[in-house]
């Protein structure tokens, strides 16, 4: 029986209006919010066409919310999934556009291209743009650099320009600036803006490429949703009526467009609950998200403010440590402008008799590495420490959290070397790869069905995918080995009457008869489906093997990609399609925004294994023991002399942050603010440095608050010995030492 804490009860008493909830890490906000949704549905104020709309950040949260609310609905003997809708922002935007694609000039079956395809298009455009505009590189490169002979330099520029182009397009779309409109605006500017010119040219080509494919990207989806809402008031009214309550989770990561969409949907005097923790806003660098929108909302007139300060996640020692970071930032950070990077409330332990009590305190549960070391030494030390610790703590969860993928990859390398079991949650999305890999294997088999090796391989993968029941898991190898050795596979799958393949192949091993029966039925179904077009074949296969909505969605997306490939390559046959899928399966890339996290990753399912993750991906998760690595002034700069900033490239003159300079100009053009266009170079670079440092302080806070019982913080002095311990860590260490001395 759910027994809300007093602070949770306060949130649950909500019935109308606007409310902002500041929730600390581990405060049970998902639980509270889903309970609130269920309460609102149960209150009976919704008619059949109305729903409580819950908007959240990632797909895993969608599942989480849905299953919690669904259980409640089921008890009432109503049709499941009615009365509420849980969506990510992209999901919501897709719903909106799908309902009235005509408003934005889209057909009903529009294609959404993923980030890799986006990247591929942009790469091609940037390549030819660089070729046509050598003067650009000359004007922005450091004077001492030789662009002609330095191949590495050109490659670095290429990578950098790609990144600039991606961010330019994303921001332009966020500002609702179509290339044509932007070009018009640019005409009225009387001086040259080479960065904007570069962005615009690439953006124009990019949009052309999308139109040619009849496709939209993720940013278009959001932009179109807003456009559709703005262009037809009746449509907006209909949706406002459909969603009389909007509950928004992770509101600190809201972007301008997200806020605008939800504000429109909520309407004046609407019912809108925004839950978030501005201290956990860590997506600014990659997206157009910004916690300032949530902060401003909380200050709005008529917004009721609540907080959820109690967290049962961590020990008191870890809570104190996180709180002291807030304290130090607010009161002692040497740079005034960064003192608002972290805000109150402090995290408080749960009250007595709470159903989610904090773990027993361990005052020695935090270890901070004091002496400096090289990056590889840091990795070695962490892995060695885990090697000693893990065998005695197989019932506990542990994670290595890193600020960047490459640091994680190094950790993975060492773990592998030592034979320590691990799960990787870095840039790659193993769930995607696994799905694509399974489909690849099936297509490969279907293109070469006489191969017993391929047959055995599908059999093995199917079991591993948990499609066939789990019970006889130990028999995978036996079954696969049997299949591999089959002579005359046709007699196994399609025996002639009176022809038993077992006379040639030997008897089917015990316990495998039924499993083989199911397996051969599947294979025969797929064989029949080889006559269908490739997209329909993949969908048919997926329907037979996947039970998870995300896998189905992923398979559908893959099917559409293959359909597009088939249109451009009419001569392709199954082997070519299998190869195309294989590329997706082997590529380390984000695909459709699905990741392990999206699949509802639960650390508790991986006791005895080490999870390696970026801190970003670890958001929302918790482990008994956390190794927080690379906490130096490169990954966590504080705008101090000697700090290096990732966005400031060595090859750009005066170490300008061209992205920041470019986006500042873009914003100025959008708002018609000519004075900002006149600002001297370097101003935007400086502001961006502040923003980055501020976000990194929050990233550190997020990293610390992932730990339940033990926290180990390490750092390294960089590849060229140019780094030192991150300033906030130094400060916390000093405070801690001081505290131990005094106590």
């Amino acid at each position, binding site marked *: 029986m759910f027994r809300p804490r007093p602070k949770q009860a306060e949130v649950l008493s909500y019935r109308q209006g606007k409310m902002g909830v500041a929730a600390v890490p581990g405060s049970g906000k998902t639980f509270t919010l889903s309970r609130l949704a269920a309460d609102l549905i149960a209150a009976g104020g919704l008619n059949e066409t109305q729903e409580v709309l819950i908007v959240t950040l990632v797909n895993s949260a969608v599942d989480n919310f849905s299953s919690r609310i669904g259980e409640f609905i089921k008890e009432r003997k109503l*049709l499941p999934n009615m009365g509420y809708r849980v969506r990510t922002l992209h999901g919501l935007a897709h719903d909106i556009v799908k309902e009235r694609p005509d408003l934005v000039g889209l057909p009903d079956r529009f294609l959404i291209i993923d980030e890799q395809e986006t990247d591929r298009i942009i790469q091609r455009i940037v390549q030819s743009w660089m070729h046509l505009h050598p003067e650009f590189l000359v004007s922005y490169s450091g004077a001492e650099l030789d662009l002609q002979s330095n191949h590495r330099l050109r490659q670095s520029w290429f990578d950098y320009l790609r990144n600039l182009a991606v961010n330019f397009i994303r921001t332009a779309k966020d500002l609702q600036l179509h290339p044509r409109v932007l070009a018009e605006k640019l005409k009225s500017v009387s001086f040259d803006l080479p960065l904007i010119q570069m962005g615009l040219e690439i953006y124009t080509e990019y949009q052309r490429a999308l139109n040619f494919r*009849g496709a939209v990207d993720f940013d278009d989806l959001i932009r179109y949703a807003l456009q559709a809402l703005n262009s037809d008031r009746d449509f907006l009214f209909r949706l406002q009526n459909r969603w009389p309550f909007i509950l928004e989770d992770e509101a600190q990561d809201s972007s301008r467009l997200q806020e605008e969409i939800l504000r429109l949907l909520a309407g004046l005097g609407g019912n809108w609950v925004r839950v978030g923790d501005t201290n956990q806003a860590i997506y600014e660098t990659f997206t157009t998200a910004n916690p300032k929108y949530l902060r401003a909302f909380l200050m709005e007139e008529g917004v009721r403010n609540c907080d959820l300060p109690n967290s049962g996640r961590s020990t008191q020692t870890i809570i104190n440590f996180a709180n002291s970071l807030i304290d130090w930032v607010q009161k002692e950070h040497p740079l005034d402008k960064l003192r608002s990077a972290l805000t109150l409330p402090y995290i408080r332990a749960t009250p007595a008799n709470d159903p989610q009590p904090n773990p027993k305190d361990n005052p020695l549960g935090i270890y901070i590495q004091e002496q400096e070391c090289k990056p590889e030494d840091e990795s070695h030390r962490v892995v060695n420490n885990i090697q000693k610790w893990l065998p005695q703590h197989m019932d506990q969860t542990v994670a290595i959290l890193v600020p960047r993928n490459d640091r994680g990859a190094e950790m993975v390398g060492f773990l592998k070397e030592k034979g320590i079991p691990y799960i990787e949650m870095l840039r790659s999305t193993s769930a995607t790869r696994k799905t694509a890999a399974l489909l690849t294997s099936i297509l490969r088999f279907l293109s070469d069905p006489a191969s017993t090796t391929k047959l055995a391989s599908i059999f093995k993968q199917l079991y591993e995918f948990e499609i066939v029941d789990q019970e006889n898991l130990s028999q995978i190898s036996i079954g696969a080995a049997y299949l591999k050795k089959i002579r005359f596979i046709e007699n196994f799958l399609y025996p002639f009457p009176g022809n038993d393949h077992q006379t040639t192949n030997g008897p089917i091993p015990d316990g495998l008869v039924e499993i083989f029966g199911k397996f051969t039925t599947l294979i*025969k179904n797929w064989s*029949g489906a080889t006559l269908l077009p490739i997209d329909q074949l993949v969908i048919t296969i997926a329907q037979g093997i996947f039970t998870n909505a995300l896998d*189905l969605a992923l398979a559908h997306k893959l099917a559409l990609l293959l359909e597009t490939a088939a249109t451009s390559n009419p001569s392709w046959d199954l082997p070519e399609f299998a190869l195309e899928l294989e590329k997706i399966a082997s590529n380390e890339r984000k695909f459709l925004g699905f990741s392990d996290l999206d699949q509802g990753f639960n650390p508790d399912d991986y006791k005895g294994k080490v999870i390696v993750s970026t801190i970003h991906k670890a958001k929302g998760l918790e482990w008994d023991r956390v190794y927080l690595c690379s906490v130096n002034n490169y990954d966590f700069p504080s705008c101090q002399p000697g700090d290096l900033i990732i966005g400031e490239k060595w090859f750009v003159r005066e170490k300008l942050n061209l992205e920041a300079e470019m986006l500042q100009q873009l914003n100025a053009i959008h708002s018609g603010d000519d004075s900002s266009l006149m600002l001297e170079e370097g101003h935007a670079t400086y502001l961006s440095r502040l923003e980055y440092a501020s976000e990194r302080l929050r990233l550190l806070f997020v990293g610390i608050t992932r730990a339940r019982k033990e926290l180990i913080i390490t750092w390294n002095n960089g590849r060229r010995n140019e780094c030192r311990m991150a300033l906030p860590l130094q400060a916390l260490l000093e405070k801690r030492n001081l505290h131990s001395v005094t106590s």
Partner: protein
Amino acid sequence: MEKLQLTLEQISIADPSRHPSLFLSGVAGTGKSTAASRRLLNLALAGNPPSSILVIVPQRSLSTPFASIIQDPSFPQGSLPEIVTFGGLARRMISLFWPLISASAGFKRPHHPPAFLTLETSQYYMASIVNPMIQKGMFETVNLEPNRLFSQILDNLNKSALIGMPHTLFAKRMISSFIGDQEVIAPLIQTQTAANDFRELCFKLNLLDFSLQIEVFHKYLWPSLLFQKHLTNRYHHLIYDNIEEDAPIYHDMVKEWSPSLDTLLLIQDCGAGYRSFLGADPVSSSSLQTVAQQALVLKKSLISENGIERCSFMLQSAIHHQEFDADPLARDSFSIITCRLVPETLKLITNEIKEITSNKGIKENEIVVLAPYLSDSLLFSVIQEFNAAGINSQEHRPSRSVKSDPAVNCLITLAKLVNPQWDAQPSRYAMREVFIQLLTRGDLIRADLLAQVLYAPKNSTETLASFDNIQSDMRERIGYSIGERYMTLRAWLMDILENPVADLDVFWSRCFGELLSQKDMGFHASFSASNSIALLIESYQKFRQVMEPTKSILENQISHEYINLVESGVIASFYMEPWKIVGEGVLIAPAYTYLLTNRPVRVQFWLDIGSPGWWQRPFQPLTHPYILSRNWEEKRPWTDADESRVSTDSLSRLAAGLLQRCCSRVYFCATEFDERGSQNKTGLLQAVNTITRKFAALDLKNV
């Protein structure tokens, strides 16, 4: 033919002397078409020359009751009444009166015969106009594949013609009502340019696409005194069924024509008008009431049982958000199946069908499984599931995608094989598809072995090797009966290679007749394959008929060009309607298609009731079925309120229409995640949910 017992009302309607000029209306299932078909018989029996009777239906599938009565032994011998669609009548009359109108209509070669374009051939010529425009950067701000672009421009032309609006005005009309993204305006204007250019091309080459057929018929032929004389001399009796499915321009012509007819029967299906995308206009058809001297309304359903009627009432109330009570008498007439995924739903449906056919006396062909869209994958999965459970099934789809039809692919592969001069040897996989369909009865492995061992695409002397020449262990593996079939196929193809057949249609006809439909071959007794192949042959013939006189392609290249167009997707679908459903078993069909088949059943299964397909119109950014209708006031903005209204109306019409064709029970199947893994909760699911809630409340009250 078994004589149906008519009601007194039907007998009266069927008697032309009692109702010489009648406007008959009523919902589906009240016996209107049956009465009309009996009237046709009575007219003939009364001594009227059958050739003086004209029956007009909006599409061929709706002509079944009339076609059946003509085939009845009691129908008088001699000439036959004509059963036509308005489009068919227009084509025939244009051909007949071509010299009279060709010059005045604006055709540049009036002394040459006209070439009537199909949708496919229209797309072919439209592509020649639009592709250069795309290359110039036009249509840039609209995300649309070229084939869809072509078809939407043609749609605009057709819709303009069907409401009698000059074809040069559709873009202006759409822009004046469009309130969406202004970036879409430019492509709308470009659409108009393309349409105008296309029309010019048609005049230049004597081509008549559907829109021009209608325009020429209406504007130039219909007013001609000579034509009017012919019409009045030829036809004295008109039976026009399902007038609500036809376009206003047809209704206009009937209004003008009616005074000169001896007898007239106009039949309107109340609540229908499903072909709005093809210009159907029930508002306009209702106005025909004024031209008939009598009007009758049939109210009593001869099909649906009381429970279904009550269920329909509840569903209608729920769709329109009107208050209603749960009706206990409707409880046994519907069931709700909820599942998480599509395969689970299909399994449950299969079990249920097994149960009701085994234990409740319901025959397989008294059941229909309906989906808003019927993708290849869904159809395949349903058929697989049914096959595994021993349930017979038949499919009915209005248009078939050429590329997705295995039988069509098989014939195209064989055509390539016997035309080595095309330099388009089929791949091993294409041959494997031929073998799996024709020789190995679905056995992929042996089909693969055949393709690997016996097919040598690069061997110019012996592309298909002899089965006798391969090693004996491989012969064992493949099996001798398959080998025998292979050799039959090979011998036939070798013969064709030695004695080439010039035309594709002849090759395909012979191939099917002499080989593929023979016993032991895979297409033997396959209704589906024979239907597809008939469509393919018809499609090619129409293509050739257009290409030959216009000399757009050299004569000896027509076959190859046709194959190229199919493969490049310009010829994307066969749109011809099959006359009737062939085969036996549970019918699987898209919901709208089923409505126009006139085939009531006892049990219906409605798949994926949350799908937007039940609710939304297909969105096409460059055309609009409602703005380009007579009922829309120009310059009035088309807003979401209009969109919601038409969605609700369509759903309401669809649901009512389906239940009017259901005798005893309907199963509403809700799937949490569709095949894309997305959740849909549109109007129909909401309405069913309302009914569920009402019954849950009723149960609670009773407890």
